[in-house]
């Protein structure tokens, strides 16, 4: 906790003097020379935001979101992550209007946008946001979320076994996976002169300048840890930093052409680059234009991540949000989404549903991985906030920005 002697004294005195509304409090705080940053820090110090305490894993929070007519739902998601007809059919079945905004392009970036409101305990104007595991972890830990009323989401029982009790949300009280995805190697066997099998293959000097890696260390460092024969689930911060050192080395050698976000797709499609650390869904889409491309799940394994549906604090339409969550967990609907998005669906029964209408896609290992494949998939390493920061900083030094 940061040291806050002076502001605390002042504000305690203010609060003692009178009952202040939140707005009045902030105005007074402003008048006493504290800026919003100071106020936020104070709130943090006062336990409004707890930095280091972990949520007690076993407790289930009692929550009740009674059924109300659905008028509005504010749903924020990543781009191209839903079949829009699903929204329309939801509106038709339940009424109301869904405001679907594809504003999430990066977990950290989105968090930065809404951070101040979250820390001040305010609503952020969204009922559902979809964030990757490590960011969901942070929001749960800091109490930024509204718990889910499971009574309104009976279809949650369709969640695949492996995702039912993650360590950041053991009873799935706050989160429900939207889609999962794999991070591994996307490449063009024709250009590389043959198939690859190991993560370490990408560092073959033959491919100098023809390799891209994801700038997100969650993905890239994890692959390096796996390449070293270790498991990411057991990885410590030292393992992570060592992995980043290795990436740095290869980068200095010129092996890695550049570090990318989702834009490795351009380079891979155009042949500028032969090998990319890539996401499974992207590669499937690329294959539509260029069937030569392949997605490799290496011998050492690959990463399976999930993007989770979350209800931010003070969400205005929790019942509507839960109804949506329940809706997309119907196997039929999940199948539709999977067919469009091409990522790994977390819903049991979706594959069978899809087989009825689109058997080819239902067979795709990358969308419906077999148990054998699933055994090779690993989660991101779990790190404390300080360690996560160290990882991000270390990677930033490597990528130059």
């Amino acid at each position, binding site marked *: 906790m940061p040291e806050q002697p002076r502001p605390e004294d002042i504000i305690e005195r203010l609060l003692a003097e009178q009952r202040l509304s939140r707005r009045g409090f902030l105005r007074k705080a402003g008048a006493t020379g504290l800026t919003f940053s100071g106020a936020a820090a104070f709130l943090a110090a006062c336990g409004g935001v707890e930095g280091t305490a972990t949520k007690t894993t076993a407790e289930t929070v009692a929550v009740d979101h009674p059924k109300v007519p659905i008028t509005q739902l504010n749903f924020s998601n990543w781009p191209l992550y839903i079949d829009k007809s699903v929204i329309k059919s939801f509106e038709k079945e339940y009424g109301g209007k869904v405001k679907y905004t594809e504003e999430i392009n990066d977990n950290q970036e989105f968090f930065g946008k809404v951070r101040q409101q979250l820390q001040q305990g305010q609503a952020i104007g969204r009922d559902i946001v979809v964030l990757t595991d490590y960011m969901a972890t942070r929001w749960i830990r800091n109490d930024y979320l509204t718990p889910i009323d499971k009574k309104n989401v009976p279809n949650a029982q369709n969640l695949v076994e492996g995702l039912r009790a993650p360590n950041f949300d053991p009873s799935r009280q706050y989160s429900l996976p939207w889609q999962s995805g794999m991070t591994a190697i996307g490449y063009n066997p024709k250009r590389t002169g043959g198939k690859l099998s190991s993560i370490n293959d990408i560092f073959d000097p033959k491919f100098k300048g023809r390799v891209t890696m994801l700038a997100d260390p969650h993905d890239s460092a994890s692959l390096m840890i796996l390449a070293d024969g270790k498991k990411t689930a057991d990885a410590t911060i030292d393992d992570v930093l060592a992995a980043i050192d290795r990436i740095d080395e290869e980068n200095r050698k010129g092996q890695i052409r550049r570090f990318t976000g989702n*834009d490795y797709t351009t380079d891979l499609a155009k042949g500028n680059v032969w090998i990319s650390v890539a996401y499974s869904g992207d590669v499937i889409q690329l294959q539509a234009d260029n069937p030569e491309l392949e997605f490799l799940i290496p011998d050492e394994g690959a990463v399976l991540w999930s993007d989770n549906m979350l209800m931010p604090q003070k969400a205005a339409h929790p019942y509507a949000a839960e109804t949506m969550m329940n809706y997309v967990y119907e196997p039929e609907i999940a199948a539709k989404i999977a067919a469009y998005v091409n990522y790994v669906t977390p819903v049991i029964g979706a594959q069978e549903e899809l087989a009825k209408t689109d058997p080819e896609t239902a067979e795709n290992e990358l969308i419906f991985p077999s148990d054998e494949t699933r055994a090779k998939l690993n989660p991101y390493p779990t790190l404390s906030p300080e360690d996560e920061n160290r990882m991000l900083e270390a990677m930033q030094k490597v990528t130059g920005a």
Partner: protein
Amino acid sequence: MSAVTRATRRRTVALGVWSGFALLYLFLPVFLIVAFSFNDPSGRFNFTWQGFTLDQWKDPFSVEGLGTAFRNSLEIAALSVVVSVILGTLVALALARYHFRGRSPLGLFLFLPLATPDVVMGASLLGLFLTMNVATGFATILIAHVMFNIAYVVVTVLARLQGMDAHLEEAAMDLGANEWTTFRLVTLPLIAPGVAAAAMLAFVLSIDDYIVTSFNAGTTSTFPLYIFGAARQGVPPQVNVLATALLFAVVLLMVGNVAYQRRLARRDAAA
């Protein structure tokens, strides 16, 4: 032909060739974007040419969210141009024609938005809105756009004002016109090209802005926000269509303007 004329002619040709290449350089990406609006990609990505089609043009708003984003951008651009041109022109007038205390520091202050990186402007403005509990959205985007546009308008109009002969205004006032009449009948017509240029610049800056907007948009979508989001996953050809359409609209406006000027000139000549 004299030696001088020959040399001049050679120079003109050389300059012309250089200019041709320079213009080609400027337009090469534009041609590409226009061309790819007619592409027929089978997948999500619009990188490789796969066939000509008019389908994208027939249905440019079929991509969900693109239409709303585009409309928002146009509305915001139009509004921010109007506000910033008015406010900015007034400031430029004050700077150019009046001596008042604080003129030089004001000049420096007005220059600062031009020197500030977009990231700083966007993030700090968001901080302000959050402190004041203002919900981010259409209005806050508009506020931000007017903010950075004012500075550009001032610079542009000021350049025009400085280049124009101030004596004309003095003469008008000597002849009994007050400030407002002078401004309306003398200054404004003379600086009109500068104001038009400023308006154009403000429009471009607004409709193209990404960074500042992304901080202050809330859940509102604009065209650049849409493109940046889509670019990571694959920009659909419909985006090319809309971008091209916008360009054509501007071309039509310019052509229309020229034709209008010509008609005015002819009418004045005939009168």
